[in-house]
């Protein structure tokens, strides 16, 4: 299937992403959900703000998903990333990988999230009690 790729200001819908990759041949589904937490580097976080270069982000995610398809045969993948203000406890990113067997789904999901964080132009700003700053690395 064509991968589902969403870069959106709306809250992410995990159930819809799961439904999008579900299929009779699927035996294992791995869901990674990145959630905003209340502290980072010793600071109390109030919320995060995500910004993206949306057209390039989508293109980069497409390349990553294509690589996961080649390496692990991951044919059914959904990737969604939230933009704008995201509150503590809300999901900022969800990746769902569905494969016939679980091993490939775990490997491909791990690869997709790790690579996404290093090559996809999406930035996060931490807004804490002390002020705000774009996060690097």
């Amino acid at each position, binding site marked *: 299937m064509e991968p589902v790729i969403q870069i959106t200001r709306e809250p992410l819908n995990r159930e819809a992403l799961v439904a999008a990759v579900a299929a009779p041949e699927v035996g294992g589904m791995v869901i990674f959900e*990145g959630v905003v937490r209340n502290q*980072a580097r010793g600071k109390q976080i109030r919320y995060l703000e995500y910004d993206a270069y949306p057209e*390039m982000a989508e293109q980069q995610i497409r390349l990553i998903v294509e690589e996961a398809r080649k390496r692990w045969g991951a044919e059914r993948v959904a990737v969604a990333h939230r933009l704008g203000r995201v509150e503590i406890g809300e999901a900022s990113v969800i990746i769902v990988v569905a494969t016939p067997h679980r091993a490939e789904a775990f490997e491909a999901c791990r690869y997709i999230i790790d690579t996404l964080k290093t090559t996809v*132009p999406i*930035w996060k700003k931490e807004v804490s009690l002390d002020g705000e700053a*774009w*996060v690097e*690395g």
Partner: protein
Amino acid sequence: MRYFAGLREVVGQDAELLTVPEGTTVAAARTLLITRYPRLQPILERSLCAVNREYVPADRTLQENDELVFIPPLGGGAA
């Protein structure tokens, strides 16, 4: 030029037209921007370069209508 994240906040706008002589490289455009916005220097020196939505090396020569974007470091978070 389009600006995102920290770069956009310093420049104060999303995009602008950059007119440069023929044969200008991405690296030269970066130097020009630092002259125009000295506060960009620390971020630009750590940024990757993209032309038309693909990462390119800094010696890439710019063409008319290219979309040039400097990509500040990505804040991935610990694995």
